[in-house]
């Protein structure tokens, strides 16, 4: 490279030439950084979502390519968050794609020392049978004064504050409305 060419790449000169007083524009770019692009541009779709942590309810954009999540960023369209996410919201990409995710159904037999894998449909069958057994054996149709109770206190539930409204609706409907389980609770109390 000739001396002149080298000299003309001197940032100060470029800054003067480009009238870029803050040096935040093109002057700051190198040949390499000029070619860089955010990984989100590769996305084949952008799905609108909501941060799953706290109740501020920040908008999220989920960038997807070939059925995999590339990144999650704040949604600048949201009138509440205006594109921002806090450290938790910004970490939700790791929350959903991280190696901590367990993707098998696990089962621990009574008194066992280890988990074992079982298929989902089998687990569902087993749980349904246990629900029936526990419900039937603890059913209270009436109290000692002959008043209708129609319930079981032998089964309980906890959870809901991080779930969708639709999921909470089915919990209450199935457990309380269908099975007579009274002890249905969530974090709103805790």
């Amino acid at each position, binding site marked *: 490279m000739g001396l002149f060419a080298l000299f003309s790449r001197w940032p100060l000169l470029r800054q003067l030439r480009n009238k870029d007083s803050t040096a935040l524009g093109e002057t700051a770019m190198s040949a390499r950084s000029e070619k860089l692009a955010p990984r989100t541009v590769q996305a084949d779709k952008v*799905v609108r*979502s909501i941060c*799953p942590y*706290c*109740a*501020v309810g920040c*908008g*999220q954009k*989920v960038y997807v390519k070939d059925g995999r*999540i590339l990144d*999650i960023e704040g949604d600048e*369209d949201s*009138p509440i968050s*205006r594109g921002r*996410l806090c*450290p*938790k919201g910004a970490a939700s990409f*790791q929350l959903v794609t*991280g190696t*901590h995710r*367990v*993707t*098998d159904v696990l089962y*621990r*037999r009574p*008194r066992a*020392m280890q988990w074992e894998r079982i*298929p*989902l449909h089998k*687990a*569902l069958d087993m749980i*349904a049978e246990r*629900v*029936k057994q*526990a419900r039937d*054996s603890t*059913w209270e149709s009436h*109290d000692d004064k002959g*008043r209708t109770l129609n319930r079981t*206190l032998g*089964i309980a*539930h*906890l*959870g*809901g*504050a*991080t*779930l*969708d*409204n639709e999921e909470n*609706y*089915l*919990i209450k*409907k199935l457990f*309380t409305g269908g099975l007579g389980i*009274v002890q249905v609770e*969530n*974090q709103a*109390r*805790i």
Partner: protein
Amino acid sequence: MPGLGISFGRGGATTFQQDLANADCIVIMGSNMAECHPVGFQWVMEARERGATLIHVDPRFTRTSAMADTYVPLRAGSDIAFLGGLIHYLLENERYFHDYVVHYTNAPAILREDFQDTEDLDGLFSGYDPETGKYGPHTWQYEGMDGVVPAAGHKEVFSEPGAGGHGKVRGKHITEVPRDKTLQHPRCVFQVLKRHYARYTPDVVSRICGVPKELFLKVAKTLCDNSGRERTSAFCYAVGWTQHSVGVQYIRAAAIVQLLLGNIGRPGGGIMALRGHASIQGSSDIPTLYNLLPGYIPMPHAPDAQRLAQYIHNNESASGWWSQFPKYIVSLLKAYYGDAATKKNEWGFHWIPKLTGDHSHMSTVANMADGQVKGYFVMGENPVVGSMNGALQRKGLQKLEWLVVSDLTLTETAEFWRSAPEVLRGDVRPQDIQTEVFFIPAAAHTEKEGTFTNTQRLLQWHHKAVEAPGEARSDLSFLYELGRRLKKLYADSREEKDRAIQALTWDYPTKGPREEPEAEAVLREINGCTVADGKPVSGFTELKDDGSTACGCWLYSGCYADGVNQPARRKPGREQTWVASEWGWAWPANRRLLYNRASADLEGRPWSERKKYVWWDAQRGRWTGEDVPDFIADRPPSYRADKGDRGLDVISGDDPFLMQADGKGWLFAPSGMMDGPLPTHYEPLESPVPNFLYGQQCNPARHEWRRKDNPMHRAWGDPRYPYVVTTYRLTEHHTAGGMSRWLSWLSELQPELFVEVSPELAEEAELENGGWCTVYTARGEIECRVLVTERMRPLRLGGRRVHQVGLPYHWGYTGRVHGDSTNDLIGFTADPNVSIQESKAFTCNLLPGRRSHDRRAAFGWEPWPLPPGVVEVPRDLEGVGPPEQPPQDKE
């Protein structure tokens, strides 16, 4: 949430986060908003940029305090004294908003003659039953009334025999309640309020809270200067207020302040409840709570709800919006049981199980530890870390026959049988734990669709981006499959007890290769439809009580109006007005700022140009403005109810709180609260000092679990546990850590548990910054690092110096970063209204160095006895106090 519900009519934040920018003054109390709701805090900062004053009142100096104009340190657990002091100040100095108070609150209503205040009874109200440890609210009534139905809270207290309204509709004579609009009558609410708070003077506030008098007066003055016709102030709170044995009354106290200042229903005003989970508001609205059905419809109690008619009579109000109650319950039963719900079988009402008392989380766990619960479902929650007395929770899990945990990863709750401290130590062997455990991997929010309800009652739809990995499934799918199996198992039964599950409607359409149920179909059911043609209704006003409509949650009715998924609306904020009504959908009826009729004066004109929001358009004969009017759209301000009017006719043009039986904001709660009509300062169950105001030390109606595995300290001044401790959250972690402690990005930022202490305390307890410390209570002990900081300050209470320490609570024994669980220190005690535990103020002791054992009362450790010469002191006046276990329903 009943604190807001009972005061104003609905259990949700009265305003929305963006509206905070309109405030002239914001008081943040019981919340560290900058760190716990960081993105919401931008609206507070925006208000500050527009010139608002920010006040932060909190035991700890935090990043919120750093941004505040005024920071007020106060003793954890003394907030009612502080708020009561504000009420005293603005009544004494006549700084309340006169016209608003006279017309929009129940200040002029006259109470019965036999009402007695805590001033008369040394800390008790009239109506206390020493045998049950409960209050009956009949003496708290308006004069001449047969009882009013509260819009929220414990409606059933009135349905108890002898309580007034048994078996007949209450509130018929609401228009005849004597009122004194001059506010002079000695028994009018205004005067009662004045007397109740007469002793909450700046000196007393200073004495109880440890707040210097001048600082308190500065807050009071700033707040008053920024309220009135031209200006408005807002309050923000979080669990720093709710997690106390008098938590609901904290919120009631703020509600009284805001009503007196005329700050409710107006832009830049209100009470912003800051919730900590993506859908915690939703999980109360469509409740996974034992005592509620969707839309705050109370679960039936066995003694008072054997028949539908009896249940309806106990819950509907003759006046106000709850006169619509029959429509909502019948439509819900139709949604649950479909064609099987007929008029003849009372729409299947008897299939809904009946309560007989408290069946809340803590009662359930206590029963579990006693071996009475066989099976337990835990979905997206980690009670072993997130709930109080974690060791007792684990003891409960050990006694189960089976446990189902659904989560993203193996939480402490899922692994209690193999990596809990008592197991690792060898005190309990896995071979001896007979509990069968199922772990169901859950789908993440990006792998399913549905709605979250955020802190401002806003439903926002999240779309599905990708398929869940492996066998992970949404809880929706899990429940749907489980329900199908159970319906099959019970299909051939002829037993009466199995009719409900047989009748339950469960035919949701499925989609995708895995045949997962469609969340949108569930949303449709929640919205409601006309049974005949399945057409979605446009809102709850279309619901009927004749079985012709079905609706899963009347409060959310309208979220699928016109067959459109309203929560999925995403018109960019910058293309709308600042209210942004076309982003998502807010309950009720897409109203963003509740009670907004109060933003206009008696004649329906804005109180001021500056605070214009909703007003009466006389030409069109309608309410109009920036938002959906929270009022009957065409009812003129001049309309007055007649004697004998019923239902919605009772709502006059000057009744902005239309959910309330009398249309007014409740300064005084004649019904609905379990622990008194007015907030009163009681000490936490464990306190450094006796109650300065009353002989009654603690909330007389609190819940207590007196068990060997749940020991408590001396009521006050326990020499074994001299320090006040308060727990809190960090920005980088989320509650029990299930969604944060497994992420390296977050764990790196906050790797381990620490205790915040002041330099003075560090010296007294010989603690070193960065060194180890053992924190212990009678329930157990934990170890953590020491953070010596001037952000914690010793307080002066009279002549005494009181130290406070702060403890975050996110750690446990599994995950990427481990640590002891702070909640192992906390006992089971609860507020009687909502059964929330007291984790924001209790006492502890500190020792330098690491713990040598891992003592837990739940596993047989016995705390040290009181030193010789020190005796127990009572928490209650003679003959007062909770019975042994949380009270069961009485005959």
